[in-house]
């Protein structure tokens, strides 16, 4: 009995019953198997219409992180990373950290995905109307099967910040409103021992050479250009928002490695 599959991008009519036999006939020696976006084994049964990918390599995760600085893969495999706000900054920081190897995120946002988010936030049209924390979980798990997200569909306050983020190794401040950013900085610095990386100033289309990294203290790093936009609400577009998110993600990684090396 023949089954039509896609194997490493090519349509194949296979007679194998399981992926192990399929592998042995087409890609012998390839120990890593992904079927329909999920890790599979040799015993996984073949199904009509399945999309299969066989790869060499020691294991799925190390193959996925082959291009990482090994210190990064190591710290991110263990770190619990909090992200306050899953909008333009948070949704993009989350993706960058997960791609780099992060497996444990604690994310908080009380918002749902809206059309005006689409110009910069890391969501798709099919996510419209969903809580951002739910949409983010689905998207991030499509990128890495190793990620576990603890979701908080809540408004963060000075009272619940220690409870939500107290167990994190680092917190990313990714709110939109200036007074909320100030509130979070006070709550994290004043009521927890967790370091924080904040995004501050990424509006408009000015040159990104104005963006910087300011180490305010051993526990507070502020990234961005620090400039208010002329308009309310500020004009925010993907290039500079993602530039700031990239700077923040890199600072999270640097801080975690620094903490690991102490």
């Amino acid at each position, binding site marked *: 009995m023949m089954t039509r599959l896609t194997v490493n991008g090519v349509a194949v009519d296979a007679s194998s019953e399981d992926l192990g036999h399929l592998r042995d006939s087409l890609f012998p020696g390839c120990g890593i198997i992904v079927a329909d976006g999920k890790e599979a084994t040799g015993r996984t049964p073949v199904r009509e219409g399945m999309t299969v990918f066989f790869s060499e390599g020691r294991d799925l995760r190390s193959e996925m992180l082959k291009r990482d600085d090994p210190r990064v893969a190591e710290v991110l495999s263990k770190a619990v990373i909090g992200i306050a*706000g899953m*909008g*333009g*900054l*948070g949704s993009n920081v989350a993706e960058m950290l997960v791609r780099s190897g992060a497996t444990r995120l604690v994310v908080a946002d009380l918002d749902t995905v809206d059309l005006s988010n689409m110009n910069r936030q890391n969501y798709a049209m099919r996510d419209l109307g969903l809580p951002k924390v739910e949409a983010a979980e689905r998207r991030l798990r499509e990128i890495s099967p190793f990620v576990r997200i603890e979701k908080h569909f809540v408004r963060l306050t000075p009272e619940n910040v220690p409870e939500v983020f107290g167990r994190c190794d680092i917190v990313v401040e*990714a*709110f*939109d*409103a*200036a*007074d909320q*950013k*100030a509130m979070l*900085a*006070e709550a994290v*610095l*004043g009521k927890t021992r967790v370091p924080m990386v*904040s*995004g*501050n*100033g*990424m*509006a408009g289309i000015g040159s990104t050479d104005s963006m910087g990294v*300011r180490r*305010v*203290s*051993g526990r*507070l790093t*502020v990234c961005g250009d*620090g*400039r*208010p*936009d002329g308009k*309310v*609400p*500020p004009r*925010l577009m993907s290039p500079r*928002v993602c530039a700031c998110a990239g700077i923040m993600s890199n600072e999270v990684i640097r801080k975690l490695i620094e903490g690991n090396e102490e």
Partner: protein
Amino acid sequence: MIANGERREDPKGASLADWLSSNGYDSKRTAVLVNGEVVPKRDYPGTALRDTDVLEIVSFVGGG
């Protein structure tokens, strides 16, 4: 007194609240560390600044 790395005039016991206001800061959008410790907003009026203090003030702006 040093604020954000720059030498400033002796505050002579002025409150942090007054100092921020006179220097154009909106205290609803700031995080302030005095000698490395964050000062909560409710303590801004009651915190008297000295010439030996080192301040770090972050002014947050909208967007994210």
